């Protein structure tokens, strides 16, 4: 989770709407992380369960055909293992992608908020500069 602490040197203010948007995004990302880990773990478990069931049947079918320890069984086992691995890798990559995306989204939300904060402060500073110029034009009335 990104650090959401506000720097307190920004003229003491920021756009509340931007803060809300940041918090909403962070909350949504936290939900995504929770769900993908929960569902991802279940998906991985299901793949392993299905794979383990399938291997029993695979071995049995080679035995029935008298192909036990044959080259065909060897090829078949490798293909089965590769398919199983590919399914697991897809599930792992899905978990990884969603976790990575939510992390980048966290950082993006923070960066957007920081940009908003900086814009807000720059606008305040612009107002300070404008007031300063106006005050200078009133010098005769302010004792020089």
């Amino acid at each position: 989770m990104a650090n959401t602490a506000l720097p307190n040197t920004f003229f003491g203010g920021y756009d509340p709407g931007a803060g809300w948007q940041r918090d909403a995004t962070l909350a949504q990302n936290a939900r995504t992380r929770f769900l993908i880990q929960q569902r991802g773990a279940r998906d991985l478990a299901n793949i392993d369960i299905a794979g383990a069931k399938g291997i029993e049947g695979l071995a049995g079918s080679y035995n029935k055909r008298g192909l036990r320890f044959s080259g065909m069984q060897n090829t078949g086992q490798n293909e089965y293992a590769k398919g199983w691995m590919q399914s697991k890798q897809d599930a792992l990559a899905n978990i990884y992608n969603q976790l990575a995306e939510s992390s980048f989204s966290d950082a993006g939300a923070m960066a957007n908020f920081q940009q908003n904060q900086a814009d807000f402060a720059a606008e305040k500073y612009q107002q300070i500069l404008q007031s300063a110029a106006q005050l200078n034009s009133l010098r005769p009335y302010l004792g020089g």
Partner: protein
Amino acid sequence: MAYGSADTIERKKTGAYGPTIIDPATGMPTSREIAPGVFGVGQAGAEAQSRAAGQMDYANYEANGFPYGPQSPTSPSGGNNNSARNAIMQLWAFYNQKPKNTVNTVPALRQLIQGIKAQQNPYGQVAMPSLAAAGNPLAAYMQQSGADPAAAQQMQQMLAAEAAQTRQADVALQQQMGQSWKANQQALINQARQQHQLGKQQQAAAQQQTNNQAMMSMLELAIKNGLDLSKLGIQF
């Protein structure tokens, strides 16, 4: 409006001309201050001379134009309107003074820049997940059955390499985003400094504008009151 008109007389009575200036030489009001017709016919001596002089001045101005406006200077110091002279000298003093009250916006600029610098790089804090590579789930089974696991091992190596590349690419992306963020922060700081410079120029322009207004007021007062600024020691 001609001298001696009803309006002139009325204004004279009500003091609209301001205080009457007495000429020390004659002991009488100066010709400019006397509206012809106020004094009756037959008044002799200094009054008559003063009146005649005033009429001559007026005739001369009508013929040649007013040198400094409707009311000409009558003294070597540049006119006799003390109020206008005082106002001009005050404006001149203001015009020449160095601004003491220039608003110092440096602390605000410093605060703005400190605020930007205090922001932490969000891409430096990204919690990057790890990407595991699936292992061969049949490794033990294949060993038991005497199968050659070469094809499965090759697949496993390929998946591990892909996972490592994916992770590497995402770390590179994270670093690039972090560097981009840093560049943006620096741009914000530069922008704030440019803003500050612009603000200083705005302040200087405001001062210049005020000075210009003071100058215009001085010139206007001088023209209206027939005052020669150079004789008051004023040189722009």
